[in-house]
């Protein structure tokens, strides 16, 4: 039975906006990121990478690289430990270590451009890079499959030899289709027969990258006792440890991962890339080895989110009630299986209550980097299709699309596309907050000559996750509390977790001192991802705080008993940072005062809290986009933008707003310009920030935010995840706005100026 909580409203710390605990270090440049790690005797590693996206490796000759002055060691796939051929759970997605090992260092085949074939360690970075160029590889080039249609064609070259596909439970050999899943509820075929209005279309999209500023990096030291220390910018020190244990074939306890500060991740810094290579170079050379990726390698070899295509068909009755939905989702997994078809199915229909639904989804292997999670992985792609189709259906039937969304909104008990039924959710509350927002009630205004304006809206959904977290608390004798956690801080989680502990302890947020530690120094904690950290690690902090209060009640009893034993722990009550005697209400002691006495009152007071949460409070959002299009050049400017979202409870509203704005901005970039522009022979043509065209501050308006708070009963303070929902609505919100402005529906992402001009010519 899952524990549930009643919502509260009288908070002292929660809902306030203290300065984040890591703020000064980060804005002054003192924070230690992965690339800042320096160790005595440190040397550098560099990779030799394949220029081909698909080829047989006939031979690798490292002799010239080894002879280069300054080179201390060279490794190839022969130095990679033999790994098991099985799926393991890494918290946010499963992996097969053998495939991962082959993907990080090619053995017989290269299956994406930039695929490492050898690694060189040398006294400095440039010697290592120059020596890596001297690795000679003989390739036999194979046909390249850049997209699902090509990879699924009859004569397609098989990318992973021996991969067995799963087609609705049937084993399929000689295929690039890893998985075909289906969810089928109600009677979809009959419902479409009954429908008065039907809309269907196919939407296509390219891979896009998280675009974090800090490239991947790793520093590793393999000592004489086969203990491996790793410093890296990761979203999950423990999941990195698990992955490394599998790849290096070591017990987890032999590996210590120290998570450094992280310059953005968005899901992309969950997998390991350089860590095992640096560790093996260290084993070979006996020296600590550091590796840092170049931006081109980040684009070409670290996981983007899937491109692919989504076909969707929806039907409504005469009263404007959605009665049927069917979809087919084909996602590019990249060179190993594992695209986010599961989450896509969970998300596609979530904002709606639809009695008859079917989803077929396909995970397809192609010659591109293996995908990695990216902020609500799988959801933005399907939201783009579904939310475009909803607008087109409304246009066809002459319905108001806002009212249609309200009338068909999901609610407690609604069955999601994958069959799960919702608990308390805020879909309708978000829609009504949107409808009463300042933005929705303001005019679009008049466009300058040659330009036209349009407004679009879209829902967005992410289920959020729970999983495992641990927190330790130590009381200091100055009244502060050290909070030890394993969640790496990407978006202000030191603050949001400390604030939950502070609330429970009745002390100011500033009096909690968070510390993110290595894998030897705190209990297992899952990744910072899935919008779980403030929810799950915050929950663990709340538990630890309650355990600490319990421990401290004993110390108060000890103090007031003065050795007589007449006060027991149960005679002490605690509220808002003060311990009281139940019998004598005038007798009290504050948390801070008590902390100062602990040295003579039983010694250090410490506590722990850990959780393993099966689920989390679902998150819904709606965005409004106002755009202006230059009809001559096709350039779209976003002129006003509002993000509305149910966050359950905003612990630190500034960081909640920051998450909503950041997600919206990434979605706007995805909608308008970002894409992997692939060359026919494989490889990405625009693998630099110059040509990848993420929006800059000059391309964006202020992103307005409206926080809706419908607390989830699953968390003591009602927290739902926040970070992922806001990347889901922008694609369709902007597509719908473009249709409003120009009267044309764009079905291919990104909706860049070239495509707008083409569409206008038709």
């Amino acid at each position, binding site marked *: 039975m899952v524990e549930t909580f009643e919502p509260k409203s009288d908070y002292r710390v929660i809902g306030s906006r203290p300065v984040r605990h890591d703020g000064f270090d980060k804005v002054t440049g003192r924070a230690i990121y992965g690339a800042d790690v320096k160790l005595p005797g440190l040397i550098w590693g560099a990779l030799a990478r394949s220029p081909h996206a698909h080829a047989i490796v006939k031979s690798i000759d490292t002799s010239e690289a080894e002879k280069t002055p300054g080179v201390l060691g060279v490794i190839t796939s022969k130095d990679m430990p033999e790994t098991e051929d099985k799926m393991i759970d890494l918290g946010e997605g499963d992996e097969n270590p053998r495939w991962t090992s082959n993907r990080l260092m090619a053995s017989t085949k290269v299956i994406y451009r930039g695929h490492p074939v050898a690694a060189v360690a040398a006294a400095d970075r*440039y*010697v290592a*890079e*120059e020596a890596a160029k001297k690795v000679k590889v003989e390739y036999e080039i194979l046909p390249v499959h850049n997209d699902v249609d090509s990879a699924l064609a009859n004569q397609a070259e098989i990318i992973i030899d021996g991969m067995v596909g799963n087609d609705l439970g049937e084993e399929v050999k000689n295929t690039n289709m890893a998985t075909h899943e289906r969810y089928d509820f109600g009677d979809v075929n009959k419902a479409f027969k009954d429908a008065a209005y039907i809309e269907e279309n196919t939407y296509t999209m390219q891979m896009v990258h998280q675009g974090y500023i800090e490239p991947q990096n790793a520093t590793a030291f393999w000592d004489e006792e086969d203990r491996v220390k790793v410093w890296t910018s990761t979203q999950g020190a423990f999941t990195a440890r698990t992955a490394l244990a599998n790849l290096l074939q070591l017990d987890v306890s032999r590996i210590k991962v120290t998570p450094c500060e992280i310059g953005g991740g968005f899901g992309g810094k969950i997998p390991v890339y350089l860590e095992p290579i640096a560790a093996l170079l260290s084993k070979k050379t006996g020296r600590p080895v550091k590796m840092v990726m170049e931006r081109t390698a980040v684009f070409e070899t670290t996981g983007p989110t899937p491109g692919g295509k989504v076909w969707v068909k929806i039907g409504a009755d005469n009263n404007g009630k959605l009665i049927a939905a069917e979809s087919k989702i084909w996602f590019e997994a990249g060179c190993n299986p594992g695209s986010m078809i599961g989450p896509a199915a969970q998300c596609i229909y979530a904002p709606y209550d639809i009695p008859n639904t079917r989803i077929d989804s396909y995970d397809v292997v192609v010659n591109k980097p293996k995908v990695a999670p990216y902020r609500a992985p799988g959801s933005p792609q399907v939201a783009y299709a579904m939310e475009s189709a909803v607008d087109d259906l409304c246009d066809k039937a002459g319905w108001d699309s806002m009212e249609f969304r309200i009338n068909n909104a999901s609610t407690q008990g609604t069955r999601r596309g994958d069959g799960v039924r919702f608990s308390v959710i805020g879909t309708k509350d978000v829609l009504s907050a949107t409808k009463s927002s300042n933005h929705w009630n303001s005019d679009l205004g008049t466009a300058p000559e040659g330009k036209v304006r349009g407004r679009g809206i879209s829902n967005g959904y992410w289920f959020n996750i729970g999983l495992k977290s641990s927190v330790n608390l130590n009381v200091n004798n100055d009244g502060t509390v050290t909070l030890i956690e394993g969640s790496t801080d990407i978006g202000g989680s030191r603050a949001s977790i400390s604030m939950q502990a502070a609330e429970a302890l009745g002390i100011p947020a500033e009096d909690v001192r968070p510390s993110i530690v290595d894998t030897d120094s705190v209990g297992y904690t899952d990744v910072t991802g899935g919008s779980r950290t403030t929810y799950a690690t915050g929950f663990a902090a709340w538990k630890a705080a309650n355990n600490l209060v319990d421990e401290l009640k004993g110390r108060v009893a000890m103090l007031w008993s003065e050795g007589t034993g007449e006060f027991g722990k149960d005679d002490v009550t605690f509220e808002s940072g003060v311990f009281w005697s139940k019998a004598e209400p005038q007798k009290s002691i504050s948390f801070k005062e008590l902390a100062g006495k602990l040295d003579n009152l039983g010694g250090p007071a410490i506590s722990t809290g850990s959780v393993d949460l099966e689920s989390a409070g679902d998150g819904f959002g709606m965005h409004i986009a106002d755009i202006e299009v230059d009809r*001559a*050049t*096709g*350039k779209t400017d976003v002129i006003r933008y509002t993000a509305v979202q149910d966050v359950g409870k905003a612990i630190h509203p500034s960081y909640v707003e920051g998450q909503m704005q950041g997600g919206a901005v990434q979605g706007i970039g995805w909608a*308008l*310009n970002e894409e992997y*522009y692939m060359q026919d022979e494989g490889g990405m*043509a*625009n693998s630099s920030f*110059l*040509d990848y*065209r993420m*929006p*800059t501050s*000059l*391309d964006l308006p202020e992103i307005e935010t409206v926080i809706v708070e419908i607390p989830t009963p699953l968390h003591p303070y009602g927290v739902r995840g926040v970070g992922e929902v806001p990347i889901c609505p922008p694609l369709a919100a902007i597509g719908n706005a473009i249709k409003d402005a120009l009267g044309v529906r764009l079905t291919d992402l990104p909706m*860049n*100026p*070239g495509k707008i*001009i*083409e569409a206008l010519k038709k």
Partner: protein
Amino acid sequence: MHPFSYVAPKTIDEAVAVLEKNGTRARPFAGGTDLLVQARANKWDLDTVVDIKKIPETMSLEVSQEGLTIGSGVPCYQVYNNEQIKKEYPGIVDGALIIGGIQIQSRATIGGNLCNAAPSGDSICPLIVYNAVAHISGPSGSREVAVEDFCTGPGSTVLQNGELLVKIVVPKPNAGSGTAYQRFTPRNEMDIAVAGVAVSVQLNNNGDDFESVRIALAAVGPTPILANKAGSSLSGKPINDDSISEAASLAKEEASPISDMRGTIEQRKHLIEIITTRMIKEAVKRARG
């Protein structure tokens, strides 16, 4: 990239001597905003970078009766912050203002932009329509080359072994003239032109006819292109939508772009027509003051 040496000669002769001695293994170093990136990307295999910023001639920025002199080491920000240049050479400022971002503009130079010879180089088309001249020094003395003849292909120029671009001289525009440059980029900044157009117009005394017009096109050929047909079609023509639209359509014909990740052939040709129209009108507006 491997270690290389850095030299900072104080005279042109010294610089030329180092460049001549090292051939392609030495490159002049002005702002370095292209050079260092290209060196890291292994475009150059360098032994020596020759910092030209200690040479007085390359650091001069002068506006005189004869025209504007921009030393090849002068960073963009000095150009676009100069009040006289803003007033008399607005087309130069249009280009200098959009090369990279603000941090880049504090190092990047107009001379470097020209020598980098990118078809999309934002300062090159304005220089061409202003009739600017590149002053080059080399082992066999000095020579002058019109900017429109300077670039010979993507990344290649008329500069021979040992030669150094010292300065660019832009003749003083006559009364009744106006110049403007604009590029199209999907983003508002920090981007590379999908297509760009510079237009310089000389109007008659009444300001109702074109006397002569120069039009240059960026990012639609292997080098920035002087669109002769488009420009000369306007000579002696009245200023109206018909004449402008004919010139724009000729410019579109003169463009010979490729399709790549920045844009397709069709999109680029279409943009040339649109931007040419807009820039002719803007140049006329500026000419009329």
